């Protein structure tokens, strides 16, 4: 019962935040509503028994990535977005595209109604130690490859954002 209440509260906050991201005109409002979405997603991860993922969702996504976004918005002094001719074309073609996507997703989910698995609170409580064993033993090579990826991303960001001499 408590699981259902928490799920519906935070699912509603998620969807409301995502819709607010879509409807707001100023990018700083969109960024703050995206932080709300990420925070409530972290609680949904806790309900699904993924404590480690919930923690790094808060630390990496809401902490690091969104701070970077807010910082860039303030650095570039981004204002209210203007309504250009291209955005009206995007609405004419985008509404049917989104409607088609919604229909497709709903069709697939209705077809897969044989999945009747019930998520139970606390039934899947693997400790973070198991995640670490998997990450540093079975997925060691992908983990090391991500360090190279992050290094390349750092160098790319420095080169791209550097002021031309």
């Amino acid at each position, binding site marked *: 019962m408590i699981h259902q209440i928490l799920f519906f509260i935070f699912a509603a906050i998620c969807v409301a935040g*995502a819709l607010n991201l879509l409807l707001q005109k100023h990018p700083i409002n969109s960024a703050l509503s995206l932080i709300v979405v990420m925070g409530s997603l972290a609680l949904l991860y806790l309900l699904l028994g993924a404590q480690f*993922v919930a923690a790094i969702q808060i630390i990496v996504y809401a902490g690091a990535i969104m701070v970077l976004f807010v910082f*860039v918005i303030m650095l*570039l002094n981004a204002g209210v977005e203007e309504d250009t001719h291209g955005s009206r074309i995007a609405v004419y073609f985008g509404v049917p595209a989104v409607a088609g996507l919604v229909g497709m*997703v709903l069709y697939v989910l209705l077809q897969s109604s044989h999945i009747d698995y019930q998520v*139970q609170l606390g039934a899947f409580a*693997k400790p973070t130690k198991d995640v670490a064993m998997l990450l540093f033993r079975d997925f060691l090579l992908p983990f090391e490859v991500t360090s190279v990826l992050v290094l390349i991303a750092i160098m*790319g960001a420095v080169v791209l954002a550097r002021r031309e001499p």
Partner: protein
Amino acid sequence: MVPVTYYLVLSAILFTIGVAAFIFKRNIITIFMSIELMLNAVNLSFVAFANMYQNLNGQIFVFFVMVVAAAEAAVGLAIIISVFRTRETLNVDRVNLLKL
């Protein structure tokens, strides 16, 4: 007890809103944020399936998705800064040449 389908439906809703924001928004930073919203929606699916199959591999994939998202955010925001420095705008309709 919540059916796992509810989590998948929530993930689908978030992904669709992300696609809609990607199409409708004109500000390049907001478009970038809608990509992050889509990545988050997929992460929710991964964690839900990890719970369903009682397997931690889904959570490891979420970890890798987050690493890639962080790298992508750093490079993408550097590109945005570079574009803004030369074109003096954040509207994607005014950035219509295949060069800076």
